């Protein structure tokens, strides 16, 4: 062992403080999902719940889209927290794929219905802009909470972890958007949703990835 490594070990020993062991990733993911659920309850207070229930009853693909985005939220959150632990394999990043597939397929179906069936009220540009703002703004607090929680662990793949967390955040925001989305997703609306979700994932990947990358190595070595 070189003198440099020996000195580093002594330094690390001197720096040692008792730490509280982190709970299992799935429990940590549940903590973040609880935050999303709390936000959902608050938003539900302002939403027209009977109208939403009516839509859900009569438009089956909306059910599937909500189920898909909710499933994506849950699975991506679990994947992100699993990836934040050093000994977890990167294959965890594939976990949200089934939810994502269902979400994309059901949203596409809704978009197709709005295109084929006459007199369907699809979102116009103003409504699509509202969707974009809603998804992006709601993503900010959810992303901050996600990154803060993930930072307490030690992701060895910060970019992948942050992007997976970003997917959970974007899916959660898109799910909560349904409280204020009383119309079908037209082509424009769908493109705007995709752009907003892409922006949230990209921002998380770039900013979150940087925040999750420890700087201590560069300083120390």
């Amino acid at each position: 062992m070189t003198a440099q490594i020996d000195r580093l070990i002594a330094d690390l020993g001197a720096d040692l403080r008792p730490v509280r062991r982190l709970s299992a990733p799935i429990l940590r993911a549940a903590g973040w999902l609880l935050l999303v659920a709390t936000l959902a309850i608050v938003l539900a207070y302002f939403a027209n719940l009977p109208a939403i229930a009516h839509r859900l009853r009569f438009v089956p693909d909306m059910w599937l889209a909500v189920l898909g985005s909710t499933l994506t939220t849950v699975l991506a959150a679990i994947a992100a927290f699993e990836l934040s632990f050093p000994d977890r394999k990167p294959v965890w990043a594939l976990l949200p794929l089934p939810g994502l597939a269902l979400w994309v397929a059901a949203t596409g179906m809704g978009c197709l219905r709005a295109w084929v069936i006459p007199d369907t009220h699809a979102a116009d540009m103003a409504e699509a802009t509202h969707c974009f703002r809603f998804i992006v703004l709601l993503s900010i607090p959810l992303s901050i909470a996600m990154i803060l929680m993930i930072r307490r662990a030690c992701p060895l793949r910060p970019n992948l972890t942050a992007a997976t967390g970003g997917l959970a955040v974007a899916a959660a925001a898109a799910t909560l958007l349904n409280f204020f989305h009383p119309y079908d997703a037209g082509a424009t609306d769908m493109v705007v949703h995709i752009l907003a979700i892409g922006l949230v994932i990209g921002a998380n990947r770039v900013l979150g990835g940087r925040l999750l990358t420890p700087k201590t190595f560069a300083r120390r070595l």
Partner: protein
Amino acid sequence: MAAASQRAAELDGEWSAMMAAAQTGDRIAYERLLRGCTPLIRRVVMRQGVYADRADDVVQEVLLTIHRARQTYDPARSFSAWLCAIAQRRAIDALRRRGRQDRREVFAPLDYENHPDPSDARQHGMTESMQDASMRGAIDELPDGQREAIEMLALQQMSLDDAAIATGKTKGALKVNMHRALKTLRARFGGDLG
């Protein structure tokens, strides 16, 4: 074989207990653990393809990561697996960093050879040594492609474009031949080549 795996399991159990103690702030157990597992870290790092001269740096990065990630270790899981995952990842990061660095930093021996510092007295020595019979002999002994490259690019100071036209070879091939020729000459003259 069975005895070796039993010993490995015992060692893993010991390390796991030491890490659990370190999580509560036991400095002695922690330092013993880090010293004990350093050879394994080095083996894992070198198995990933990190050269021996860089291995110490990567081992230090792994030790720092262990320190930063110690709250994520669950004593119900294998410590060796946790440690190896960190060591492998840090080795891959180091190799990628090295790769990026190599791509950013252009290795251009021709620039050094063709544009010597006029204030550097050693260049005059270089001229003398180029005139030296032993240098001429060494150049003559080079394979055809390498000799051609060094004569045109270094001795006649032709540009890469002109040399490529003159020889009918690509600029890449000329650079490779020049690089190999310089390497051979450096090895022969003990690195004392300009």
